[in-house]
């Protein structure tokens, strides 16, 4: 693993925590260990990337509460819930709170690693999407007000000659504005222009 992705482990059993740290460390994962939910919440930072492995049964705040709290905080880390006695109720609660996976102790280690990898790729996908979104928003901000007006009319499917009278400018000027918009946003067709413009309306 060459990325900066980290597996955050929250489990109140020191032996389990230590063993997981060792195993994942040997497999080349970066790990960070927390002995309780409160510690994790205290340390948590938005930039943290990777996934969280949370045991349900912990002293203090339990695993499912931590999961819900993280969701409220807008944490993007995928959550893998771990439990010694997986029953349907717990699993349902975990998945309703958007858990990435639900594993039973003792672990099937292949499943564990697969779950972590899947969580990583899920996280990467989310982050990639967010990044693209952010980039799109940044690009939109570079448009002048006139250019934005032209764009909004273009994406509704109007022709240049229909737009010109609406804005009270010549068809030729509309064409110039449209070309500049496409250029600034780095798109070469109307479909992509529509996609980026929708970021502004979200």
């Amino acid at each position: 693993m060459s990325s900066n992705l980290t597996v955050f482990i929250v489990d109140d059993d020191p032996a389990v925590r230590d063993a997981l740290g060792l195993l994942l460390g040997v497999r080349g994962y970066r790990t960070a260990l927390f002995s309780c939910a409160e510690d994790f919440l205290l340390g948590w930072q938005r930039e943290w990337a990777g996934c969280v492995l949370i045991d349900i049964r912990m002293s203090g705040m339990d695993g499912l509460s931590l999961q819900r709290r993280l969701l409220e905080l807008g944490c993007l880390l995928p959550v893998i819930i771990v439990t010694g006695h997986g029953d349907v109720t717990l699993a349902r609660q975990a998945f309703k709170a958007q858990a990435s996976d639900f594993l039973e102790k003792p672990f099937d280690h292949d499943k564990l690693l697969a779950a972590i990898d899947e969580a990583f790729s899920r996280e990467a996908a989310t982050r990639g999407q967010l990044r693209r979104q952010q980039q799109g928003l940044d690009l939109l901000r570079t448009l002048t007000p006139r250019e934005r007006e032209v764009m909004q009319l273009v994406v509704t499917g109007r022709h240049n000659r229909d737009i010109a009278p609406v804005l009270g400018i010549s068809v030729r000027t509309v064409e110039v504005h449209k070309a500049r918009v496409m250029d600034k946003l780095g798109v070469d067709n109307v479909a992509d222009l529509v996609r980026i413009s929708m970021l502004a309306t979200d």
Partner: protein
Amino acid sequence: MRPSLSRHLQYPAFVGLYLLFDWATYIDPMYGLNITPWNPDPALGLVFWLIHGRKAALPWFVALLSAEVLVRGMPAGLPLTLLCSAWLVLGYGIIGEALRRRFSSSNMFDNRRRLLTWAGIVMAGTLFNAVGYMSLLSLTGRIPAGEWATALLRFGVGDTVGMLVSMPLIWVLVSERGRERLRSAIWRWETLAYLALGGFVLWSVFGSILRCEYKHFYFLFLPVIWAASRQGLYGAVLAVFALQLCIITLVKWSHAVHIQFYELQLLDAMLALVGFFIGIVVDEVRQVSHELKHTMRLAAAGEMAAALAHELNQPLTALSTYGKACEYLLERGESGPLLQNAIGHMIVESGRAAEVVRRLRDFFRTGAMQLEVVEASALIAGIARQFTPQFHEHGIELVLAPPQPLAINADRLQLELVLRNLLANAQDAVLGQSRGRRRITLRAERLDGGRLRLSVEDSGPGISSSLAARLFEPFVSSKASGLGLGLVLSRSIVEAHGGQLWAEVGSHGIFRFILPLARATAASPGEPQ
């Protein structure tokens, strides 16, 4: 009949013993015939028949014949004696076969039904036997005309009482298992006490029997009921036989043949039957309570196992994870401190798992408690944690009273089990309420006298007095999936800790239990252990 006796010796031994019985109980005979008030010898013969089946017929015939010759000098003449003996063996054989068919694979004295069947077969068979025997004697003129009915009654009573009183004891004595069970049942001082009482009662009553026609016979029920109620059937068997032996001895010794000995024997037969019935009922009740204890132990172990599953899971998880890590380390060719460290951890973790297993095994074996100092607040916090997810799910508010430092000497797992039971019950109780009105309160308080009171209250409908009466009965459950053992188990755990558990009748559910505080806290509150 003992296994140590070789097969060939068993038959002469039987004949010898039979003769001895016949000789010893040849009292008050009618017309010098084998019509006596107590014949334990056929009981011996029946047991022999039960063991050997039809092969017992010939030795029995030999025994009857030699008894006529040796004990009574063959008063009826050879042909008639041969005929009568043959008839008796036939009759006894029919009883023996009936019993064998009925009880070939089971004990005769296990339950009331079997006892009744046994007594019925013995009585009916004896009647049949007596009718034939007396008719033979009467037809050949050995019994005066008109005396047939009296002789029939006497012979019938003698045989019936002999079998009823003696057969259970002989039956118990012939088998190794029976001897062992008899020994374990009666081998105590109490046996001497009730035998002494029996002797005393007999001694003081016998004079009055001679004078007042059994007016005080009922006193003899005292020692028999004592024996039966304390030691079950085995005690009753012993007491009844001992009393009969004493009665016979007294009659023989005092030559009190003028009393209505047959009536005495009838009373004695009733005494025996009553004793056996009480004994069997006592045995049955004990058996049921023993089975219940066993079931409870199993149920408790099941709950313990559930509680331990989590504790076992943690070291197992750590173990397998360390193991997997070691595998990767070896693959990488690592053999340094990292590997050693991991292996050291594995050893520690397997010790932890073994400890959990040992506790479960201890519980199975003895129900033994593993006492440690437990903080009530830690106990409550721990159990509350286990319930948090499901309470959350059902919108149940769990109120915990502010913790105080209260320490008890207890088996943490067992007490967790009690609290889990009570909380699970409370949860079921409040689920009937609408959301927002589901509340469970868990509170620990100190009481005077160094006691801790734990209360679980719920906002459910509460417990009516009629339900409260049946609440702690085993196998009474209001839940479709319940075994009805949770509260019974909880109560027995709390009582084993020297406390009490009860439910309060009220408008909402209240369960409380009291436990003695650990001594240090009881003396100086607030001091850490």
